[in-house]
């Protein structure tokens, strides 16, 4: 099925809960209401015509400058039966973004959702093990948000880059080597 037919099928089934579409995009998608995502996902997987048995990617994107500011979670689906792809998108408010988990539909969502929670702070309700996955457990904040500021220190380690050697040299410290003359034996470096 092509993207249009998939979208129509979803609209026919869920009506209002399919809140928008982006069929012209390079990867066509439908926008799903946040509370309905688990049902839609389950339907996408179980319906024999859709048969989206594979969640390729689950990614969160932060749009603070949009009006209203929002977060997006994009689900890229693939069907190993019909070999078609489609994407679902959920738009969330930037304050306390939360949506149901799809972990019960696709097993891989477990880790993807944990990563999304870790890096963007999107809460997946009903997730069995919603812990940080990539960052340390006691890390504060969610770095992939656009307004993220690096902390100065984490457990006494510099997080922000310290003064680089070039800056130190500019400031007058006598470090570094050179200037020097050096002509390598061959210069046929460029392609």
């Amino acid at each position: 099925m092509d993207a249009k037919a998939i979208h129509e099928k979803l609209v026919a089934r869920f009506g209002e809960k399919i809140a928008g579409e982006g069929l012209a995009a390079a990867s066509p998608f439908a926008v799903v209401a946040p509370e309905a995502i688990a049902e839609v996902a389950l339907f996408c997987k179980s319906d024999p015509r859709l048969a989206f048995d594979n969640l390729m990617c689950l990614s969160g994107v932060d749009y603070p400058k949009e009006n209203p500011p929002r977060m997006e979670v994009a689900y890229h689906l693939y069907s190993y039966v019909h070999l078609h792809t489609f994407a679902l998108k959920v738009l969330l408010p930037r304050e306390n973004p939360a949506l149901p988990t799809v972990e019960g539909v696709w097993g891989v969502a477990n880790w993807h959702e944990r990563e999304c929670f870790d890096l963007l702070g999107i809460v997946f309700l009903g997730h069995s093990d919603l812990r940080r996955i990539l960052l340390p457990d006691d890390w504060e904040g969610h770095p992939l948000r656009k307004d993220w500021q690096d902390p100065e220190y984490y457990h006494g380690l510099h997080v922000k880059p310290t003064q680089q050697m070039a800056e130190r040299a500019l400031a007058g410290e006598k470090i570094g080597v050179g200037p020097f003359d050096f002509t390598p034996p061959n210069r046929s470096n460029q392609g």
Partner: protein
Amino acid sequence: MIRWLKDVWEGVWTVLVGMRITWRHLFTRPVTLQYPSEKWPLPPRSRMRLFMAYEDCIGCGQCVRACPVNCITLKAEKRPADAPAIWASNGQPIKLGVSVFDIDMSLCCYCNLCTYPCPTECLYMTPEYEFAGTDLTQQLYHFAKKDAKFITEDPKKKAAPPAAVPPASAPPTSTPPAPATPAGA
């Protein structure tokens, strides 16, 4: 019983087959390269230490923008109007005086992205890889020279030398000593 026997036999047999191969390898030539005493000839495109021919730099800063890890520090300002005109070896006039050109090789990721935009091809990677040091500060390279010998004649006016002269070839030494590089150098 038959399966058991087959299993045992296969176990012994595959072990013997493997042993034959390792036995054969006992007598094949080792491929080891004894590094400090023998060295592999590096292909000319090898991307190792960065080098910049200071006399050719026009201070455009494209390499700084291209570098994904910000390992190049460049400070250039307009040359005073009364300073003698100088040219890079590919004939491009040098309008900006480069007072600082530092490359922090400890940050460099050897991606070669900085060398492509360079209009005078003065920045390039050399097949030089033995520059480990005992101190991190030895990885900071200053390329800006105080006594650089720039080309002071307009190359276009001269009878054009063959265009394929490699840019890094030594600048003509007969030129009178260039004035000190611009203020701040």
